[in-house]
């Protein structure tokens, strides 16, 4: 299956996690890893599974590298009908009122434009005990399984 991992980050944690997920899926799939800041909204396609990894900044806002992407999406009438994605958030429960709002907002934005979310949004807590990859690898495996049943095994 074609998988594009998109990450939104400020200090690089989401990028590292995106690479870890890529390494884990690489053997069985055609995987590329791209910063949301480098991903043109027009490039989404229906045959690809998008795994989105995104942190939170400010007061529950998107990280800097995801903001231009979100602005373009908000401004235009881009249709993401037929696009499938799963999303994983990085945050910190120290910011309890806006915990992982970045990934939440991004998921809402994608679905508002017609994309279909596969599975539940999963989140990491920088103040918690779990390592991000320990949560994200099972999440990714699950997302791939959901996509395979949608796309048909052959994809």
């Amino acid at each position, binding site marked *: 299956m074609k998988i594009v991992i998109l990450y939104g980050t400020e*200090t*690089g944690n989401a990028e590292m996690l995106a690479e870890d997920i890529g390494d884990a899926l690489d053997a069985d799939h055609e995987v590329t890893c791209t910063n949301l800041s480098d991903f043109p909204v027009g490039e989404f396609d229906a045959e690809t599974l998008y795994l989105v990894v995104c942190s939170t900044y400010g007061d529950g806002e998107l990280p800097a590298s995801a903001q231009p992407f979100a602005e373009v999406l908000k401004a235009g009438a881009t249709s993401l009908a037929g696009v499938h994605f799963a999303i994983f958030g990085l945050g910190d429960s120290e910011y309890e009122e806006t915990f992982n709002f970045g990934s939440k907002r991004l998921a809402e934005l994608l679905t508002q434009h017609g994309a279909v979310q596969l599975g539940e949004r999963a989140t990491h807590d920088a103040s918690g005990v779990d390592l991000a990859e320990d949560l994200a690898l099972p999440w990714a495996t699950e997302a791939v399984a959901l996509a395979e049943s949608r796309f048909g095994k052959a994809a």
Partner: protein
Amino acid sequence: MTHKIAIVGAGPSGCYLAQALLKARADLGVDLIDVLPVPYGLVRYGVAADHQGSKAVTRQFARIFERQGARFFGNVHVGRDVTRDELRSAYDVVVFATGLAADRRLGIANDAAPGVVGAGAITRALNGHPDAGPLPDLGARPLIVGNGNVAVDIVRLLGKLPDELTGSDLGPEQTRWLAESGIEAITVLGRSPAAQAKFDPVMIKELGKLAGVAITVDNAGTADDEHGQKLLDALAAIDGDGTAARTIRFVFSHVPLAVETQGGRVTGLRCRTVQGDEIVVGCTSIVTAIGFEDIGDLPRADILAQADSAAPVYAAGWFRRGPRGTIPDNRADAQVLAADILADLDGVSAGPERPGGTLFEGPRDVVDYPGWLRIERRELAGADAARCRVKICDRAAMIEAACHAEETSS
């Protein structure tokens, strides 16, 4: 042959630079050299003990050494243990990422009186930096001058109740110092209007969560831009917060004129208000959080001039830009600098093989990355329900743990 690159300073800018260089060219020989026996600069010794989430970037930095092949040479003071010339002949490229660790002074009468302390000195002591002096006696009514995030870090830590520090890596001595501080009232004073303060609004909001303080905000004024308005909203949200006996008061638009003393002790800060009046804000100590400058052990102006020339010498991070910018800013900058260095390297045909890290061989105790891991393992072993780590704060003890500890093979 591969190019050898020395990065002096293993703080965030040095680490992000190594990360970006090795991501682009895995074959480069990248060595990070630090005067401390431990890596990560201000992530370990600046970022507040109760902001462990921000310290988690060290997981990325660990990978530079564990997977990307960078090497760590700790406990090496460049400029003293090895000279800049020695470094330049041992490496193809030298990068200075040594930060700016000296507290900027107020530059007014009496600004070095006993009882005037720098924010850097206090945050180093709170973070268990091996070269930090003892934690000072701030008295019952400390005054913090400065309107940046470092000032907020200090207010927050001074204002926290002991159980609000659970999960931090604040050391036992520091914990006791805070618990027994006897502080009754903290004033935070800035020379500019509130809307121009450099506080991150999120950091101001965080103060609203403290259970042991009552907060007031004086003369916040108005804003004419979005950042200013966000900040005023955040300040308005904490104004009047809490009913505890210990108070935090924000004061804006007060220009410091002189430190007032009596019998050699600080008694207040003379200021000019916007109305042009001179008033004295009473206090028992003054903490200056108005920025940082170089400590002067390396000739910064010379190095920055070299970095602008064609020489294979570069500067990064706070040392290059000045004491502004957060960890993400260093990452963005390091990526640009890495691209510059790589472009310059392409133009240079590889010279004869240089000695690189063999320069540091000798009688001195040099802490390598496995040595740092031995220090870290010991620090983590001291963790309990209240603290995620117990730092080793003494340089000799660090070196002992890193270099001379009995190997417990696994």
